[in-house]
């Protein structure tokens, strides 16, 4: 008996409940045959909701010319095909199902997926029927986590075609926890600032200093209230000015109007205040001097990005923060409602021609990509991955279970991560594996910004490793790694050859 096993046995002797949970560890479940073959309609729904325009999933002509030789399923759909339907009847014979039943009965009724590691032997094609076997890998002793007391349950599912060809596996971990047992934010936050220290500032933006609004800048703040970024323009000579002035410094005219900015710009300089901390802000505060494409500059907050994403020259686009309600009804001066321009990264154009490994280096950064999180994305993403847990589609029930709102399921996070990587590197990027860990939830209204970098690279084979993360305002929603194959090395050609051979074999059979 190895040391960890020995300590587990000792603990289990003291803890009959844990022993019961761990009874089935290592035991495979029954064979689960997918109800439907891999099919184009589900792929199309998935690609629609994930907003993945990769033609290899939906365009037969483009797919035929690709490394895959024909339509393939998105790799992160691997564990969608064998999922149960909305009735979610749990197979009592499955060790995983049995453990979950025990935990539910013991009050650990809430579920949070935390990890999913997908390994793909090859991509799946429409018409293939999968079967899977799940094996319970571990059940943790009770843990006190931020969201509650519970047990981590980990299992591995192996996937094969019904003909018996292994095609991939998924290592999945979830936390089964007792609702309402999470840590309260207050004490820990205050503790971090030390005894007697001032409490952290209230980040409610209505507590920010209000702008001083007068006859010279009224047009700007009126425009902001209408979500229109106005640049002062001289009515006589057309010169643009920021900050505004009653008189055109170029031609001397007192006739001043404005032009509405496109909202596109680049970062010219930045500053990130840490101290002193005042109400209205979440520290550190990201601020930028943005050079608009019209040529003038202005200061605004940088949103949907983290400190380490700041790069002078990065493209930015305008968004708005309705920061302050009116102090007096009808007021249009400083006491009126205030709206502030903000700037966020721009979703990069999809890479249509897959990058060659020869043009990349370890350390290369992938472009930032903001992903607006809507209720449609969360609900659609859950349903398209056959995930019917109520917290992903029913706000009332999600709130009753202690969430602020519905939140994104792990399959959608995986799908978005996959889309991000192939949009950055190209449609014929081949996934060997993708491993994600979830952190803070994605709720409707959040923006998750993806970032990533190349961490390893083999020029001979074309295999690369990337790390990536998706961050929203409260922290990392998803962090992960992926092993990918790009053109320019031996492996991509090998995959192309294997795809062609498989295709020819299928043709011959039919």
């Amino acid at each position, binding site marked *: 008996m190895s040391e960890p096993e020995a300590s587990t046995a000792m603990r289990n002797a003291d803890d009959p409940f844990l022993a019961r949970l761990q009874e089935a560890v290592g035991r495979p479940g029954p064979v689960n045959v997918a109800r439907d073959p891999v099919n184009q309609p589900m792929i199309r729904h998935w690609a629609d909701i994930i907003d993945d325009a990769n033609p290899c999933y939906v365009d037969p002509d483009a797919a035929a010319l690709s490394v895959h030789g024909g339509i393939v399923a998105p790799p992160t759909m691997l564990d969608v095909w064998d999922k149960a339907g909305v009735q979610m009847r749990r197979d009592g014979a499955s060790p995983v199902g049995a453990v979950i039943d025990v935990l539910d009965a013991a009050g650990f009724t809430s579920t949070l997926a935390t990890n999913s590691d997908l390994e793909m032997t090859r991509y799946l094609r429409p018409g293939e029927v999968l079967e899977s076997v799940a094996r319970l890998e571990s059940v943790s002793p009770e843990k006190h986590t931020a969201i509650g007391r519970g047990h981590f349950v980990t299992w591995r599912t192996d996937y094969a075609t019904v003909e018996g060809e292994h095609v991939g596996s998924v290592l999945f971990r979830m936390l089964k926890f007792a609702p309402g047992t999470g840590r309260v934010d207050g004490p820990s936050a205050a503790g971090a600032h030390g005894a007697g220290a001032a409490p952290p500032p209230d980040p409610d933006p209505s507590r*920010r*200093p*209000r*702008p*001083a*609004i*007068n006859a*010279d*800048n009224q047009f700007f*703040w009126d425009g902001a209230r209408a979500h229109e970024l106005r640049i002062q323009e001289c009515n006589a000579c057309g010169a643009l000015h*920021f*900050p505004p002035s009653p008189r055109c410094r170029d031609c001397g005219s007192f006739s001043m109007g404005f032009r509405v900015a496109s909202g596109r710009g680049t970062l*010219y*300089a*930045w*500053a*990130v*205040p*840490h*101290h*002193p901390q*005042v109400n*209205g*802000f979440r520290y*550190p*505060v990201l*601020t930028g*001097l943005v050079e608009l494409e019209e040529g*003038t*500059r*202005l*200061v*605004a*907050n940088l949103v949907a990005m983290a*400190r380490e994403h700041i790069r*002078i020259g990065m493209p930015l686009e305008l968004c708005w923060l309705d*920061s302050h309600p009116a102090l007096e009804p009808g007021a249009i*001066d*400083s006491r009126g409602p*205030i709206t*502030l321009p903000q700037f966020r990264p721009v979703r990069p154009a999809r890479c249509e021609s897959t990058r060659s490994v020869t043009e990349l280096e370890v350390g290369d950064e992938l472009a930032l990509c903001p992903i607006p999180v809507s209720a449609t994305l969360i609900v659609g993403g859950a349903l398209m991955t056959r995930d019917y847990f109520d917290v992903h589609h029913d706000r009332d029930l999600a709130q009753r279970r202690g969430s602020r709102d519905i939140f994104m399921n792990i399959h959608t996070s995986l799908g978005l991560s996959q889309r991000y990587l192939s949009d950055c590197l190209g449609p014929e990027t081949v996934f060997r594996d993708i491993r994600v860990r979830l952190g803070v939830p994605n709720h409707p209204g959040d923006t998750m910004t993806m970032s990533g970098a190349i961490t390893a690279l083999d020029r001979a084979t074309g295999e690369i490793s990337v790390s990536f993360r998706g961050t929203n305002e409260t922290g990392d929603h998803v962090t992960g790694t992926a092993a990918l194959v790009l053109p320019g090395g031996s492996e991509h050609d090998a995959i192309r050859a294997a795809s062609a051979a498989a295709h020819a074999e299928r043709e011959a059979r039919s």
Partner: protein
Amino acid sequence: MTAHAYAGRTAIAGIGATEFTKFSGRSELQLALEACVAALDDAGLEPKRVSGLTTFTMESNPENEVMRGLGITELTHFSRVHHGGGAPAGIVQLAAMAVNEGVSDYVLCYRAFNERSGRRFGSGVQDQPAGASAEQAQFSWTSPYGLLTPASWIAMFASRMMHEHGVTSEDFGRVAVTCRAHAATNPKAHFYNRPITLDDHQSSRFICEPLRLLDCCQESDGGQAILVTSLERARDLRQPPGVIAAAAQGMGDDQQMMRSWFRESLMGLPEMAVCARQLWETSGLGPNDIATAVLYDHFSPFVLPQLEEFGFCAPGEAKDFIRSGEIALDGRLPVNTHGGQLGEAYIHGMNGIAEAVRQVRGTAVNQVAGADSGHVLVTGGTGVPTSALILSNDR
């Protein structure tokens, strides 16, 4: 440009200061009076002989109270300069002009505050009422976004400087390390005997990235006064005169108050270039004539473009000048030999003028060889409408 009329004909005849602390334990008015009395004692002049007062618009002590406290019975000149720390050489220039015009024989320039134990500038502008004057409206472009403090405004320039000129946080740190090294041997400095290393700088916390705590000057309680009179009268007083060889104020194109971010370039300091041009042209001097300089150091990054604007090095090369040790005591241009505002105290630049006087007298704790027979440059606040002057020994 011909010399200004007062240049070479007026002088600083006395300097006086309180101790520099973090808690003075007395009123700002008392600090002002103590500093003025000290300056008069230094010169050996009866307070009643003073007939002019100049100070900053930010000064809380009105001229009438200072006059009463000093026992002055008549004032014929009193004037102020706006824009915060940009004023110090400006109020000396005002005094010199008043003296040279015959408006006033002896003018005291003063600045005193409890800037650490009272209202701290570093706490920012968030408590200011949202008025709607043109001056208050300037804050509308920055305050709602969280840029509330001088550190945050300078940080915006610093990030661009790092991007465009390849300056690093370590370069900023070298400025701080140099000033603290000079303060370490100055008994009047708050940081006397407390030098820092570059590692100390690099491990100090961020105040506003890219600025670290040790890039930021101190906040201080204290007062500093300077007595200005004609060179001829100065020769009759107790101390050797610090001759005002040149003085200048400057605002540059599209000037803003520490937030001139809308100019074509954020590199350099156009307002300081206006001062530099006047100083060189009116005095006939050049960078090679300067033995030592007191360069305004509220935040370390802006020491770099000052070196460039005055021609001590080429644009973009200040980082190299600093890396090769040229601003240290044994360098080509020792800078802030008293420790600067990073090391001695933050008295809105007025203590820097006093240090220049000590250098031309030959009495500085870190005396630079040749300064007492040469010329010393002093600058006012950076990033704001500013001022600068050159002092020379009387010979």
